[in-house]
């Protein structure tokens, strides 16, 4: 076992003296570890660890939340979704405050159970998240779901948003820590585009503090010796090709779509919708849901926080009008949201 202090010393020895290095993580669990372990204060001055779009709750479009509220108010519908989604604010309130027939679930298989137990109702599963939650939703479809279960898909693709970030000079990313479990599904090869096309070292890491620091050391080492490539300090969990079976099942049911990211806007080919063959399961089609124009939350800078252009502490509402108990913006809701994490550690 390598000692933490050794890794820190190693990191110090690799720091370029003349410029800042900005390393972004795109994983709520990574940001969690970084913030709670106090890792930022252990880093040499020149290294900036910036939180990126690691939390799918924060980027879920307001339009879908409003649809979820509206559907839950229908007498013939039970809306089911992950706990965090119930509290996300929208101009029509949150699902918990304004919804009527809704249930929290912790797994897509619970959606099946609820559908089976309530055959006279239409169960709408508001399914959100990155690849780690998309694959489980695809898994229930693969096994077969009851006829009264519909999917409202708000799934997002991690590699696409990372490419948007890389191209934005204002953010100026020098290296990525890639999310461990997303990588287990998509494979570390999915990040090769960053080293090969953009010259940005990308290293897959788990969420243990030591492992994350190893990842940071590897990024700095690559920047120093100029041999930029995809690294993986989470081997044993993540393979270069990823989980092919999971990829195949996802591809069978979902297709890539141009979708909206809350606070950011439309990003081509960055989300997943059900394929046309499965329209009968697609809540958007079955209930005729149309995109609702997003309303800016006055004062909230979540979009900038997600893109690494601002820190939560730059927001005037942070810790004042916006707290985990009464979140004004989406980034304060989930335990993986940057504002929520920073609230507890700053």
């Amino acid at each position, binding site marked *: 076992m390598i000692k933490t202090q050794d890794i820190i010393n190693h990191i110090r020895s690799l720091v370029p003296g003349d410029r800042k290095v900005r390393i972004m993580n795109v994983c709520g*669990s990574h940001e969690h570890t970084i913030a709670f372990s106090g890792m930022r204060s252990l880093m040499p001055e020149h290294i900036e660890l910036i939180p990126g779009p690691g939390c799918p709750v924060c980027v879920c479009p307001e339009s879908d939340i409003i649809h979820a509220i509206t559907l839950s108010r229908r007498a013939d519908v039970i809306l089911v979704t992950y706990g965090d989604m119930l509290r996300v604010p929208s101009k029509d309130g949150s699902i918990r405050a304004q919804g009527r027939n809704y249930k929290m679930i912790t797994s897509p298989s619970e959606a099946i159970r609820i559908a089976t137990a309530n055959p006279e109702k239409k169960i709408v599963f508001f399914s959100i998240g990155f690849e780690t939650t998309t694959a489980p939703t695809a898994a229930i479809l693969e096994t077969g779901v009851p006829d009264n279960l519909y999917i409202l898909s708000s799934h997002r693709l991690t590699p696409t948003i990372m490419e948007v970030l890389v191209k934005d000079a204002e953010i100026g990313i020098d290296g990525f820590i890639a999310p461990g479990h997303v990588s287990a599904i998509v494979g570390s090869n999915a990040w090769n585009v960053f080293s090969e096309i953009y010259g940005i070292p990308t290293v897959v890491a788990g969420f243990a503090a030591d492992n994350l620091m190893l990842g940071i050391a590897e990024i700095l080492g690559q920047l120093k010796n100029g041999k930029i490539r995809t690294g993986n300090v989470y081997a*044993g969990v993540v393979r270069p090709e990823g989980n092919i079976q999971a990829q195949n099942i996802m591809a069978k049911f979902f297709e890539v779509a141009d979708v909206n990211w809350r606070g950011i806007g439309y990003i081509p080919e960055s989300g997943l919708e059900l394929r046309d063959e499965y329209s009968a399961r697609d809540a958007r089609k079955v209930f005729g849901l149309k995109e609702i124009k997003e309303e800016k939350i006055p004062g909230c800078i979540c979009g900038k926080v997600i893109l690494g252009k601002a820190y939560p502490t730059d927001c005037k509402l942070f810790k004042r009008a916006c707290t985990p108990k009464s979140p004004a913006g989406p980034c304060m809701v989930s335990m993986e949201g940057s504002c929520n994490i920073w609230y*507890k550690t700053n």
Partner: protein
Amino acid sequence: MCVGVPMQLVEINYPSGVAEAKGVTRSIGLQLIAEDSLKIGDHVIVHVGFAIEKVDKQRADEIWEALEEVLRMMDEEDSSA
């Protein structure tokens, strides 16, 4: 929602199974992993009730250690807040 925990398979009825961790058992989906690559005693990482990848015991232990560390850090924050 996004946190994956390692669990050990104690029963396989593909495409579902039963897994155990820290004395807690729950039924999980195995669809995302090839049937012929699974056996009882395997460690898998479970996200929202579905195994997404197999890991060896050492990795599983390490991930648990990291999870417990994170939980401990959060507790400290809560009690000092």
